[in-house]
Every structure is written in C-alpha cells, then in structure tokens.
C-alpha cells in the first residue's frame, strides 16, 4: 500500500527528519494562501501515486500568486498514468548545494532489509549504480539484532563522506530505518535528501510502501494519516465489479471466493486456486479466449459464497458464458463448488448447461460433484483432461457459437 508524498513526509516528521515547511491544497485559492504565508518562491507538486511527475508536468515552480493559482488548477486536472491527484503540496523552493539518495527495501535473496545510500540523489538510482558503483552503498540490516546508529554510519561512510555531514546524514538514515521497521514497510525512500546552502539537510521527497498484510498492525498510523479501510491503494483504483467481488469474499471467512480482477472479454472465469488461476488464465488467453475476469477460489469456500461469486461473474455485462476450472484439489470439495456454481447460475436467471462451457475440478468428493453436474447436464471432465485442454474446450465452445 503506497503512501502519497505528503503522507510519507508526515511520517518522516514524526521521526524528527526535517521536511520543508508548507502544506497541501485541494484548490487554487488554498494553494495561494499557503504561498502567501511562505512568502517566497514555491514549488507545487501533484500528489498522485505515480512516478514520472516532473516529466508529465505535475511539478511546477512559481514566483507569484497568480501563477500559483494557475499551476495548481492545471496540476489538479492532470492525470498521470491514468491516476488522478488527490491534492498538491505547496512548499518553498530550496537553495540546494547537493542531493543524496536513501532507501530501505527488502532483499529477497539475502532475506534481509537493505539500506541503499548514494551521494548522487535526485536521479534514477539503478542508473547511478550501473554507471557510478562507488557512489552507491548497500548495507544489509539484521532482522534479529536491534539496529544501532553504526549501520547508517557505515552506509554513509562507504560512499566516501566524513566530517559533520556523516553525522547529520546518518542521523537521518537511522530515522528512516526506524520508520521502515516500525511500520512493516516494503519501501522507505527519501529522494532526494538535499543539503541546503546553509549546510543543513532536508528530505525533499519521500516514498513509502506498507505491506498489505501488515495494515491491521498499524491502524494507529493509518488513522493518523486519515487512510480508511476501503482505500486499498492498488496500482489502479478498483472497479465496481472488483469491489463487489471483494464483498462476496468478505461474507464469511471460510475459504476464498473472490480476488476478482476485471478484464474486458466475454468468457467469465471461475478458477482457482492461487497458482491454478495463473495457469488457467494463461491457458485461456493462449487458446484465443477473451477472459472477462481473473478470480480465485480455494480453501473450500461455502456454497453460498461460491454461488454469489458465480452470480456476479455470469451477470457481468458482456459475459456470454463461464468456465469453471481448477487444478486437482485436495482440500476444496468438488461437490461444494459444483453446487455453488449451479446455484449461482440459476439464481442469475440462466440454465447451467447453457452458461457453463466446461467444469474441470478433479479431486476430493469428485464423484458427488459429477453427480450434481450430470443432473444439470453440465459438461465436465476429470483429471485425465489437463487444465490446458479444458481451457481449449471452453474457448472452442465460445467460438462455435459465433
């Protein structure tokens, strides 16, 4: 879950990391008020969950109140990578003598957090690492030992910085490490850290990501930042179809029947589980099929939940038929899924045999499941027919009808 820059900066401030003065505005008049209070040249920055703001025109400098109003209006109307800004930051334009980069993220290979630091901030860190490796340090942090200041000092010292700057920068980095650890972040980044003309250091931009699984542990912070439960911060906002899918899954805690992602095709998919869904989605696409959705069922969801998910998918505008497929299941009961899917199709006002192209879920309680499918004349296959072949059968049926 990604934080906006202004939220990240609030977190930095809590840990005594200096951030620019100024504030946020949702309209040109408020932006002008902040400019008046600051009484100096300002920068206006779009608050949008996307990179590349500067290039897209989402960051502008302004010396007078009229341009501040004009730029704020323009930036608030500007979508970047299909995302709308929620507000703008208005801050003083700083007199900078040097820029630095600092971030903590997970190294999945070492299975430890890694502190990345560079004295060449403001630009793409991967590019710096490639062209100027001696200007980037990587310092792994223990998951078990408490983190002391020395880890931050090593990171700063390793790019050749000493003197007063070493102490100021490592204080800031230690604060960033504490934030990363305290809030289960997957990324805590300051880019750039600026050394101002007076020799002090300030965080000019911040970027933080919290692990979705950890949200429940940090309700205090989320409340403080006014982030509510519905605000999922995915890379694109959820569609109504996806919101409805999540509501189906939340009906009860037994199993999964949800994780819906909307696509624009005509074949509704009821597929599972985690890996099976990925495999089947590829198989359908590969066969020339056009999925209307991605979803996951697994962990033995109730008949009711499966029926509700089916209803949602089979009723989606543009969906002509559905395919019901999983890998060989051991914990999910085939008969329960069969019952749920048939119930859902009927409740949506259709005949199961007209709407279900294929049912391919082999595994526990399959005999019971197949009996139900026979009764409703739904075509099914057992484990001797592969997932790939089942997807082909389904797509072929769609094409024959056209």
């Amino acid at each position, binding site marked *: 879950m990604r934080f906006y820059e202004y939220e990240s900066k609030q977190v930095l401030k809590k840990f005594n990391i200096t951030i620019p003065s100024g504030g946020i505005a949702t309209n040109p008049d408020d932006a002008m008020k902040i400019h008046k209070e600051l009484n100096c040249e300002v920068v206006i920055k779009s608050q949008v969950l996307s990179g590349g703001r500067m290039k897209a025109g989402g960051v502008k400098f302004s010396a007078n109140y009229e341009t501040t109003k004009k730029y704020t209006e323009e930036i608030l109307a500007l979508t970047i990578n299909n995302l709308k800004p929620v507000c703008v930051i208005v801050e003083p334009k700083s007199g900078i003598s040097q820029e630095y980069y600092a971030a903590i993220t997970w190294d999945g290979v070492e299975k430890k957090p890694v502190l990345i630091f560079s004295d060449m901030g403001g630009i793409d860190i991967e590019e710096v690492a490639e062209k100027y490796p001696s200007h980037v340090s990587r310092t792994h942090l223990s998951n078990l030992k408490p983190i002391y200041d020395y880890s931050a000092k090593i990171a700063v010292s390793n790019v050749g910085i000493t003197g007063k700057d070493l102490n100021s920068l490592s204080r800031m980095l230690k604060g960033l490490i504490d934030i990363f650890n305290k809030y289960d972040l997957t990324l805590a980044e300051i880019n750039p850290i600026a050394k101002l003309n007076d020799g002090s250091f300030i965080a000019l931009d911040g970027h933080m990501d919290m*692990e979705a699984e950890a949200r429940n542990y940090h309700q205090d912070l989320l409340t403080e930042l006014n982030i509510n439960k519905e605000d999922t911060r995915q890379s694109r906002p959820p569609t109504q179809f996806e919101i409805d899918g999540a509501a189906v899954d939340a009906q009860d805690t037994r199993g999964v029947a949800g994780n819906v992602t909307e696509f624009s095709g005509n074949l509704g998919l009821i597929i599972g589980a985690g890996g099976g869904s990925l495999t089947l989605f590829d198989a359908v696409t590969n066969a020339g099929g056009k999925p209307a959705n991605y979803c996951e069922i697994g962990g033995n969801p109730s008949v009711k939940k499966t029926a509700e998910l089916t209803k949602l998918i089979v009723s989606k505008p543009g969906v002509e038929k559905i395919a019901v497929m999983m890998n060989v299941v051991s914990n999910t009961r085939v008969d329960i899924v069969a019952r749920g899917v048939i119930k859902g199709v009927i409740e949506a006002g259709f005949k199961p045999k007209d709407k279900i192209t294929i049912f391919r879920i082999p595994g526990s309680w399959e005999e019971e499941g197949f009996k139900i499918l026979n009764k409703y004349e739904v075509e099914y296959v057992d484990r001797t027919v592969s*997932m790939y072949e089942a997807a082909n059968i389904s797509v072929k049926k769609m094409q024959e009808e056209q």
Partner: protein
Amino acid sequence: MSILIDEGSKFIIQGITGREAVTMAKELIDYGSKLVGGVTPGKKGREVHGVPVEDTVKAFTDNQKIDGSIIVVPPAFTTDAVMEALDAGIKLIVVVTERIPRKQVAQFVEFAQQQNARIIGPNCLGIISPGKSKMGGIGGSAEATKRAFVPGNIGIMSRSGGMTVEIANSLSSSGLGVSTAISIGGDVIIGSSYAELMPLFDQDNDTKGIAIYSEPGGRAEILLAEYVKKSNRKLPIVAFMAGKFMDAMPGMRFGHAGTIVEGKADTTEEKIIRMQEAGITVVERIEEIPMKLKELIS
C-alpha cells in the same frame, strides 16, 4: 530415498486443536506419518485423533527427539510458534499459515539459519515423500494423496500448493513417480527457495529429475538458474512458468503475495530466458513435464 522426511520422521503440529489442524492430523495419521502430538497453549491433556496435546513444544522435546513441526496457527501467533520450535531445537519447520508480514518471516528465517534449522513456507502445503510420510496438508486425505502421489524418482518444487498436486498427478498418469515434493510457499520471503533445496536433491541418488512450478515476481528462478550453472550433478530440470499475462501488468498482484512484478527481472519472460540459459527446460503446458522428463532421463 527421499529428502527432508521419510518413514522415520517424527513430528508435531503447533495449533493442533484448530479446525484445519484437526483434519490435517487425521490425514497425516491415516497416511502413515509419525505424528506424535501437538501443541495448543492451555489445552494440555486433550487428545486429537489419539495423539496428546501439550501446552509447550518443550514438553515434547524434553523427552524425545522431534524431527519437525507443522505450524498451523493464526498469523498473529505464527512468529511466536516458530521461534518456540526453533528454540526447542527442532530442525525442520513447515509454516502453513499465510498472510504473515514479511518482516516477521525474515526474523524467524534468520533465527533458523543461526540454529542450523530449515523452514519450509510460509503459505505452503508442506512436504511429501510418497509412500513414506507427509508433513502438511499436501494431497488432502490419505486416499486422495495416494491417488495423486505415486512413489518414484522425480523431485517437485512448487510456489503453488495446488499445482504441486496437479504436477504429481500428471507425473503419475504418465507412469512416473515422486521422490519428494515440496510446496515451497507463495510469499515474497520464504524459508527455502529452489536453489536452497536443490543441493539436497543433488545428493539424493534416487532423484533422477526435477519438476518446477514457477511464477512471476521475486528472484527465486534466477537464483535457481545460477545454482544450476555451478552445480556438478546437472539433474535434468523441467520448469513450467505460470502467469505470463502478468508481464504486461506491472504492480498488480495475482494469486500469491510473491507474484508482484516490480522490475524486468521479475517478469516471466526474463525468468524463462535465464532458466533456459542455465540448461533448464521450460515447457508451455503441465502435461509436457512428464514427457520432457522421460526424454531427459533416458
């Protein structure tokens, strides 16, 4: 032979009185696994399918050698349970629980390294050495497990629990069998990834080939490729890559927590190239796995 577990392995279930764990206990006992008991704090003295329940792990390890523990407790209590098992000297831990924040996973994985112990998972179905023992929910009921998993000489490693069973099924229907299958877990940080388990398979003379289920996200496949380039044994490996559609959707998460594509190295395209460069055969369909393995082994 097999790796990690065999007919002699004795283990416990932490969280044994939970609904899912009670079912699992029955499946394990029916299959022939040596489940000697379970732990649920505050429920000492009870029995689950004939095995005793204790309050602590130490209550078992004080009196006998316990080879492994299966962790089936809610996410908020998982780290505590794993740490307890590691502290009690247990060397093999299967973490079934999903939705554990990765910081906590990294903590118990680092502690396990210090204790020379091994973690499988989290977010996995566990391990099976067919005909000998299984540790975790893998395969379901004893009957279903026997149907999908036939003893043989193919090792399976999979980031998806369900697809481990699908692959085993496709092997057995082609006349091949499994030495040991491991559902390694779907999270970003896991206790043992392919490259960390391969040395065990390389040392197992009865394993003649490896089947892999892989996904977008993370570096596990690239590390496997690097390992394979360096290893001497050169066991034939056939890998299946799911989630190709995700390459065009960076930042989105499908299936498992570990699948998010954050950079080029996380895409299926890049992983396939790197695996092929290392001599790993990458197939388009699950049913090609047994076909290719038969070719490569003979």
